[in-house]
């Protein structure tokens, strides 16, 4: 499959700060990629370099077969993280303006705008000024501006931030629809849960470097589950019996259920059977690692001391909680 995006050895510094360092990335045509990483990891800088809004200090960027996204602008849809609207313009005028700038024929633009507005449930705001809309509504308008010209490549920088759950779902479906149409989609988020819900591939960026680039399934497989969640049938389980089971290295009570850690090389299937036999259970399952867990596991490798790791864990959890709350 041809690559929609190809980055080789890309590096970008702002003064003394290295924002992105020796980044290699290949996104195949038709891919659905999520860029994840905490705030300030270098996601937006990477995306801006892909868009040729910023230029890399070193390395090579190829977008849709061109050396610069500028040469393929009409085929790219972009929802920047720093996004806004012309406050004084009417909604449909703004969208028509953006559409025409992206190569949509002026005579068709009006109809397209109308169709899209109705699709996202904003049919009645067509004649309103952009400043009269709520932030969430504006975000949907901006999304329309990114996709109205049916791009081959759709790049969304933090598309879900600031949306309520209903609109988040709506936008997610629209993104998946664009992908189903055949567009290559890349989006970034610092909320891991969102990435888990949508993307096929994850690219994890931390401190300007790529730490992970794989399909979601492979990532999960690679980060082999070593934890079993055990819910006792009665009030409490026979903890000493559980501890005694072969391959178990630890048992921890958390929210009324037991987190049972397994040692290296132990087959989870065998362990489940043995655990069920040791103590009656109402539920027993393999605890699949979330992207968040994986991210923390990866980052912990370079965290020099436990304190730094704990700080990071807290910051990622805070991001997730924030994302969940939204």
């Amino acid at each position, binding site marked *: 499959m041809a690559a929609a995006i190809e980055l080789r050895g890309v590096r970008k510094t702002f003064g003394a700060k290295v924002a992105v360092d020796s980044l290699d990335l290949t996104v195949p045509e038709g891919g659905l990629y999520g860029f994840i990483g905490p705030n300030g990891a270098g996601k937006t800088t990477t995306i*801006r370099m892909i*868009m040729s*809004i*910023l230029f890399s200090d070193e390395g090579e960027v190829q977008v849709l077969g061109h050396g610069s996204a*500028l040469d393929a*602008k009409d085929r*790219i*849809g*972009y929802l*920047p*993280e*720093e*996004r*806004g*609207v*012309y*406050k*004084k*313009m009417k909604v449909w005028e703004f969208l028509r*303006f*953006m559409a*025409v*700038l*992206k190569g949509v024929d002026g005579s068709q633009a009006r109809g397209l705008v109308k169709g899209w507005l109705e699709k996202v449930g904003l049919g009645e705001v067509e004649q309103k000024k952009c400043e009269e809309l709520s932030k969430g509504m504006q975000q949907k308008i*901006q999304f329309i*501006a*990114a996709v109205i010209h049916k791009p081959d490549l759709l790049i969304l920088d933090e598309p879900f931030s600031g949306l309520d759950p209903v609109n988040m779902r709506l936008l997610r479906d629209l993104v998946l629809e664009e992908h189903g149409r055949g567009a290559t989609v890349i989006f970034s988020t610092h909320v891991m849960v969102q990435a888990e819900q949508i993307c096929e591939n994850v690219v994890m960026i931390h401190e300007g470097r790529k730490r992970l680039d794989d399909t979601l399934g492979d990532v999960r497989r690679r980060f082999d589950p070593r934890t079993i969640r055990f819910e006792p049938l009665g009030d409490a389980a026979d903890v000493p019996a559980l501890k005694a089971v072969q391959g178990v290295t630890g048992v921890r009570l958390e929210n009324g259920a037991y987190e049972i850690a397994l040692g290296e090389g132990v087959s989870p299937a065998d362990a489940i059977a043995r655990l069920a036999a040791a103590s009656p259970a109402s539920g027993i399952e393999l605890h699949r690692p979330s992207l968040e867990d994986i991210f923390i596991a990866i980052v912990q490798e370079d965290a020099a001391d436990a304190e730094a790791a704990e700080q990071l864990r807290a910051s990622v959890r805070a991001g997730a909680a924030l994302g969940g709350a939204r």
Partner: protein
Amino acid sequence: MKRTLYVAAREFKATVLTKGFLFGLLILPLMILFLVMVFPKLIKSAEKAPRVEGQVAIIDSTGEIGPALLTYLEPEAIARRRGDLTDAADEAMPDVVKEIGGKRMAEQQQQALDLILGKVPQLEVLDVGTGADIEEEKLPIRDFKMEDSEAGGRLALVVVEAHAIRPRDDPKSGEPAYGSYDLYTADKLDDRIVDEIRGGMREAIVEARVQARGLDRGDISRLTSVRPKTNITVGETGEKKASKKDEIVRFLVPVAFMALLMMSVMTSGQQLMTNTIEEKSSRVVEMLLSAVSPMELMTGKIIGQLGVGILIMLLYGGVGVAGLMVGSLFGLLQVSTLLYAFIFFMIAFFMIASVMGAIGAAVNEIREAQTLVMPVILTIMIPYLLWMPISRDPNATYAVVLSFIPPINPFVMMLRLTSSTPPPVWQVWLSILIGIAGVYVALKMAAKVFRIGLLMYGKPPNFKTLIKWIRMA
């Protein structure tokens, strides 16, 4: 290119179709219209101004002034003098205006003049005799009320000095000196009446002095008056009667051109800056950059504002040219001047617009822009400050030098071009060439600042940072 023009069209519409801009654009012509059409009607409504009736008391130790003052202040005499004034005003009015206005205009003017002068007052002169006590005679003046002016009463007291007509030796210098008069008037008395009394006293005293010397007043006025003649200019094209209004217009045309240039350039430049700041602060700019390159965006915005500048030029310049045509003074302008004006407008516009666009892209809000805009405005003001010296001596060394220094060369050159002694053609074209080179450099530098500044948020840059940005990209 299509995108650039589309950006330009939006920029133009977004600027022109705002209430603030339309108001600002039309306020000046509307004010002129107001002054011409509505203001006279407002004066007319003041028609109810009351007629003043009252008594002017005089203590006349010479005994010769009183009767003359009485004659001067007779209502008929006052009315006659006002009639003369109207005639004089009529004379002073340009023929063109008279032709356009026709008879109706003359009537209106007469009316307007009547209104300005107020109704003819009924003044009675009372000689209270030389022996009267000044303090006592002043008392009735206190009771005079302007609000109740038709009720009569004493409104003024004139006390004539004894040597007002025949001089006496001054005790200090020993030279013969004439005396004068003291005038006491009611509080808030209409100053037109005070003027009438003063005029009457002057007339009466001069008349009396002249007669006391045994001279004839008519003789003196004939001896002292020389009919004014306008000068006739002798030029290559022939002789021509110079006229005052030509002189005034000739004096005003250069500064009018410069002001027009400056106004259109600065208005559109400011708009470019504020629009860019708005795009940046509303975060719409990165959306735009996904569709157009920074260069296309800047070019489009500048072209859009060029349209705004031209609109202002045409509107105000058109009014000015129309005004000159009405005054059949269009001959004072040459078509080449208008052409040069356009060229220099373009140069000045692109220079200022690129600077303002760069500033707009560099800062986050208007407040931050002020420190960067201030030096630009001060520089542009230089030709304004030098308007008088340059238009008096358009080919002075400093004027020549300044007309080669961007960004003020278009303004200085425009001043010199429209002055009485235009500069040699080679200087004009050198200035244009330097201007074009300046525009090229300014646009180049602006493009760099624009592209870097657009996505820079946070601390507003100073000139040092801007120069760093220019070197960077």
